[in-house]
């Protein structure tokens, strides 16, 4: 401090920062939303932990285990539908980079359709289990299995609603600071669902199938 003080000319010293600094609203919001998504990740941590402790042989109470009803290639089709949906949203965001509104909306529509495919396959799978008499109440193991997979499916459901809302907002409001910020947070949300699905698919479906 003292060395600075000796070189400052008191007549010309600027005591106040008079320049206007624009606040980066988009980055502030996306970081905040990313922190929210990490806490959402902790929700999945608790559900994975519950599945981990409720997937022993005795957890199924003599009833069906995932080894008996998981169909790996069926769930692999779900995986590809979700990954393609994420890819389509990514291509849409690449169109946003070039201010290409129709490209963005096409990408989001493709992401929506593929997300619906994922959800329909999941609902079909669950109704098939129900028709076999396998429900949430069958055993502790089945409760953990169904809650974990269906909490992920619920995220997909709300993500699909969000995609529709954002298509409408882009069409009516265009590329404003608000809509672009929301498109970025939706990108994080949607892409994180693919990351979580990798864990669900490998450690719940495939591991359940082989154990």
């Amino acid at each position, binding site marked *: 401090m003292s060395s600075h003080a000796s070189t400052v000319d008191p007549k010309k010293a600027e005591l106040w920062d008079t320049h206007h600094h624009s606040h980066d609203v988009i980055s502030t919001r996306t970081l905040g939303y990313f922190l929210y998504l990490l806490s959402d990740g902790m929700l999945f941590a608790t559900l994975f932990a519950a599945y981990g402790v409720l997937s022993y042989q005795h957890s199924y109470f003599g009833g069906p285990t995932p080894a008996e009803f998981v169909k790996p290639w069926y769930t692999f089709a779900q995986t590809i539908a979700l990954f393609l949906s994420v890819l389509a949203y990514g291509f849409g*965001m690449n169109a946003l*980079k070039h201010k290409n509104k129709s490209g963005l909306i096409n990408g989001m529509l493709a992401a929506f359709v593929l997300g619906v495919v994922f959800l329909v396959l999941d609902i079909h799978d669950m109704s098939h289990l129900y028709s076999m008499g396998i429900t949430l109440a069958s055993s502790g193991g089945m409760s953990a299995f169904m809650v974990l997979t269906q909490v992920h499916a619920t995220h997909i459901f709300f993500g699909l609603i969000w995609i529709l809302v954002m298509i409408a907002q882009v069409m009516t409001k265009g590329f404003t600071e608000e809509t672009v910020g929301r498109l970025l947070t939706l990108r994080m949300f949607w892409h994180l669902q693919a990351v979580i699905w990798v864990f669900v698919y490998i450690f719940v479906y495939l*591991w359940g199938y082989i154990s």
Partner: protein
Amino acid sequence: MSHSAADPTMHPEVQLSTSKGYFLGFAISAFLMLVATFLVTSHSVPPFGLLMVISVCAGIAVIAQIYFLLHIDISEHNIWNTVALVMFIPLFLITIGLTWWMFSQLYLRTMDMSVMSSAMQPAVHASATPGMADMPGMNAHTDSGN
């Protein structure tokens, strides 16, 4: 982190999108899931080795997605996302790992597994889950317990 607010599409988080990156994230993770599914269905690897292999598939796929899709890197713009994620990973692993460890020890010390597996056969809830009795292994040990 400051930039002109005039055109939101020029924001760095928009501009860092690349089709190539998104495609790589998709291709790598889809290929690894294909490998894992193929290995699991072919039954060519013993269970413990299989678990190791599919865990590695999951790990690489997640890293590829986090890098290519979530843009987690050490660039000036994304460093705080990266720091938050790095802080998050231990919490995630500790939550799952400690819970699993505690319950596995509990089961080990409080339950006689041979009694558990033979005492809980489906006689009680066979009526609640019709069709289960037809499945392989469902009628084993019906002479004990209940």
